[in-house]
């Protein structure tokens, strides 16, 4: 048996997405920049996909740029806003402490170029407030970038309200919506979003393709130089099969959002309830304002990589913010950002579901996690000290 509960890492492609890709490999395979009939046919299909994606996001087609994925879109959005700000003498950027590394590392790069970065506290519940953003905005702020929903702990940010603050103060607002697209309702117009990044493979589409939405009039800086594809904003022959697959997947996900979300949320809530029974465990992130598919826990006295490997041996695919899974000595910056001490952050587990998971699978996961945590605690010298009272529990 194999239960896949790592959908925040990537998803299985849907049949619809796979079928949508196939014709563009051996039938409509011409280069959309070519002037011949087959090339122009490909261009028409590309334009149609762009229009579909735009509609699903509440945007205009010319505001949609196809990229190689969420990371590229994040890079391009942030670099573009920074360069625009620099020209006006504005070199201050606001973000949060628990963004994806595609955002944080781009900000690090800008910091080295003389930009000042403010990373807002995300509190224990993993949510930043519009007031914090309002308080942090200065005369020289050129960009606010806040993720739509966190990839590790699933907390959903008040995007519309933050967008409103930015609009009012005349500051560009970007959101990394990689975990949200296809899972939560998005309307860039209604939500006051100037730029948005998404990635195809997080909603049953293909890998290696994503979208940058940039509101009309925002001058973009090219990350990839070359030909004049994407109206000169992103060079390279368009990855049409992937774009078609992603578009079909996004349409499907948006069409079925209400139904999928209700189903997955029920499974999520059962999983949270089942794992909460494990003593000295804690749910990471707000219980209510979280992605319908995200479950994130810390278990005291154990280490996450060992937990993952043992779950894998029982057929459960999950992930962890443990240092040992990242190749560094520090545990997840997300868990540290919500105030989990290192000792606790090492013992983390993320389970991210999808609509294909079943109630039986969830019950199996609860049993498997309970057994593995109990076993690892039984061989942990930290746990024996906690139980004997030699050391105090951090998670009560």
């Amino acid at each position, binding site marked *: 048996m194999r239960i896949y509960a790592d959908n925040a890492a990537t998803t299985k492609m849907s049949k619809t997405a796979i079928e949508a890709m196939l014709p563009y490999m051996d039938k409509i395979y011409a280069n959309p920049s070519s002037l011949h009939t087959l090339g122009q046919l490909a261009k028409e299909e590309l334009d149609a996909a762009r229009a579909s994606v735009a509609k699903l996001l509440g945007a205009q087609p010319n505001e949609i740029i196809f990229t190689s994925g969420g990371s590229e879109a994040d890079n391009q959005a942030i670099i573009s806003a920074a360069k625009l700000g620099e020209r006006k003498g504005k070199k201050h950027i606001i973000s949060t402490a628990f963004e994806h590394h595609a955002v944080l590392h781009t900000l690090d790069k800008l910091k080295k170029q003389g930009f000042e970065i403010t990373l807002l506290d995300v509190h224990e519940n993993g949510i930043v407030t519009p007031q914090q953003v309002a308080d942090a905005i200065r005369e020289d702020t050129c960009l606010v970038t806040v993720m739509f929903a966190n990839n590790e702990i699933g907390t959903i940010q008040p995007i519309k309200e933050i967008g409103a603050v930015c609009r009012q103060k005349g500051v560009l607002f970007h959101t990394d919506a990689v975990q949200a697209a296809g899972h939560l309702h998005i309307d860039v117009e209604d939500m006051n979003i100037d730029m948005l990044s998404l990635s195809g493979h997080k909603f049953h589409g293909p890998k290696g393709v994503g979208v940058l939405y940039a509101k009309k009039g925002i001058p973009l800086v090219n990350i990839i130089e070359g030909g004049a594809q994407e109206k000169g904003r992103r060079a390279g022959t368009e990855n049409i099969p992937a774009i078609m697959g992603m578009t079909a997947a996004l349409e499907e996900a948006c069409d079925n959002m209400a139904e999928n979300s209700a189903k997955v949320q029920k499974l999520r809530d059962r999983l949270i309830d089942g794992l909460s029974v494990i003593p000295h465990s804690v749910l990471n992130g707000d219980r209510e304002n979280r992605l319908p598919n995200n479950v994130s826990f810390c278990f005291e006295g154990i280490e996450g*990589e*060992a937990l993952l490997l043992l779950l894998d041996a029982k057929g459960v695919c999950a992930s962890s913010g443990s240092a040992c899974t990242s190749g560094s*000595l520090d*545990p997840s910056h997300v868990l540290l950002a919500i105030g989990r001490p290192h000792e606790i952050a090492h013992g983390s587990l993320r389970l991210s579901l999808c609509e294909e998971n079943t109630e039986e699978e969830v019950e199996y996961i609860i049993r498997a996690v309970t057994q593995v945590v109990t076993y690892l605690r039984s*061989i942990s*010298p930290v746990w024996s000290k906690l139980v004997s009272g030699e050391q105090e529990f951090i998670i009560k």
Partner: protein
Amino acid sequence: MALYSDKVMDHFLNPRNVGSMDNASGVGEVGNAKCGDIMKIYLKIEDDIIEDVKFETFGCGSAIASSSMATELIKGKKVSEALEFTNKAVVEALDGLPPQKVHCSVLAEEAIKMALKDYYDKNGIAYDCSVFPSCDSCSHCHH
């Protein structure tokens, strides 16, 4: 290729000599929960022979496998032989560890040495301090 060798997975999934020990001749604990790994080794020494070894580990798969392998390697050995024990023996016996996991084998070596030091201390046996790790926390740790 998988992250770990079959040997590592075997010792991780079926660790040998797990547990604690009452009235141990020597106990050694190294590591730091902040860094994500702590190893505790218990030795039962009779007539200069390591009759029994037990371990408890808080840590990743390779930390657990390294502890397990280390206990197997020193069980039945003379104290003087155990003192010669190095992390390289653990890495070799496990058919290698990924570079970022070699420190787990170092922890296993240090835990054994600290247990031997404890045995010497308890029995008033004189020893050369330089043979043992200088601190009881992990020297490789960044914190």
